[in-house]
């Protein structure tokens, strides 16, 4: 990557790759990993939210870095959301099964996801973990019990494995989302399902995410164009929090050297403008603006 003939490095991948690109001495645009929290609040349309999440998390078997990693709900709607996931063919693992999946999905030494599960189907993961799941299961749901290095499945896993948390109140729920956001996914993406505008805006303010998706599947939403006006891209900037240069969706425009031909164009209005009026307290801002634009 340090070769002098390289014009620009576009690095999409893990933190190590991005750091290597930025350290190469060549111009680089690097984008980092995500750990996308999804907050379903009690004003949301639950069947709609669950259906969207499934369509997103199962897309390419969860390979997209913007795919949902954890669902956070209130205790008051936990059973309702859980039942909806089950109704739509998702399977909640028990503690023993979670331990088995942890073993094959996470590299113990590093705490990061194992390449052998990335983009794999539920049936393949179940075989690897030596667990039995119902035929047609779309997502393996896990309740890690906490967030952090000691709860390996609370981090990013690019596979149809989805963490599930419930919180006693609004503040606790948002705190869970903040913890998930800062567990390897700073600056990437976050999602909220809600019909409460104030909560949506509060959520956006509190999460460090380049993209906050509202009532939208995150895989298809964050990569742009299908559900919103974000530029279509699979290279999603995470900003300085993620040690990236931008929070933008990177497109061909970011790869261009843009040249500007700048012809001399003196601003003659300044010469015609009676500048003593700046110090005349009887003049309002509008008076000055009018004078400035006057056709002398």
């Amino acid at each position, binding site marked *: 990557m340090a070769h002098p003939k390289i014009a620009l490095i576009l690095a999409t991948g893990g933190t190590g790759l991005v750091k290597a690109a930025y350290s190469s001495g060549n111009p680089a645009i690097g984008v980092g990993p995500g750990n996308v929290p999804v907050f379903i609040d009690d004003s949301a349309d639950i069947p709609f939210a669950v259906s969207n999440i499934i369509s997103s998390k199962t897309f390419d078997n969860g390979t997209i870095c913007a795919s949902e990693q954890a669902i956070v709900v209130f205790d008051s709607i936990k059973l309702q959301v859980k039942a909806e996931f089950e109704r739509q063919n998702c399977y909640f693992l028990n503690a023993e099964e979670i331990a088995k999946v942890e073993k094959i999905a996470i590299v113990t030494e590093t705490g990061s996801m194992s390449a052998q599960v990335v983009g794999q189907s539920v049936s393949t993961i179940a075989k690897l973990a030596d667990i039995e799941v119902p035929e047609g299961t779309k997502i393996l749901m896990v309740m890690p019990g906490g967030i952090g290095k000691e709860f390996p499945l609370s981090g990013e896993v690019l596979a149809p494995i989805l963490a599930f948390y419930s919180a006693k109140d609004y503040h606790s729920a948002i*705190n869970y989302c903040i913890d998930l956001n*800062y567990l390897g996914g700073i600056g990437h993406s976050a999602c909220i399902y809600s019909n409460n505008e104030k909560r949506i805006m509060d959520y956006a303010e*509190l999460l*460090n995410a380049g993209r906050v998706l509202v009532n939208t599947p995150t895989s298809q939403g964050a990569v742009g164009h299908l559900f919103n006006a974000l530029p279509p891209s699979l290279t999603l900037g995470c900003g300085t929090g993620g040690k990236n240069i931008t929070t933008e969706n990177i497109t061909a425009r970011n790869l261009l050297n843009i040249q500007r031909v700048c012809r001399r164009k003196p601003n003659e209005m300044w010469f015609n403008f009676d500048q003593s009026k700046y110090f005349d307290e009887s003049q309002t801002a509008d008076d000055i603006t009018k004078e400035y634009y006057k056709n002398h």
Partner: protein
Amino acid sequence: MVNFEYNNEEKTIKVIFTGRLDYMAAGELNEIIQSEPIMKNRHPEDSLIFDIGGVDYIASSFIRTCVIHAKQAGAGKFAIINCQPLVKKTFKISGLDEVLNIS
């Protein structure tokens, strides 16, 4: 703005903060904490817990207060509990959330 509770069984001092801990308030707090008899009589084995459930804003000077007391309390003997989201985010951005044992 600040109250103190001592739990003799758990050997824990809980300092309960409320309100907006801006630069001015945090400065006053340092004096209040230092002059509080419970704090003056603190034993080395006592844990120190800052309960900031009633705090909706903190300035960087309050983070400094937390760091000083975490250092004085020693490893594993300091915690901050009941953070509101905006306050939690501030600690996260500072990168001190793990050191200060935030929950």
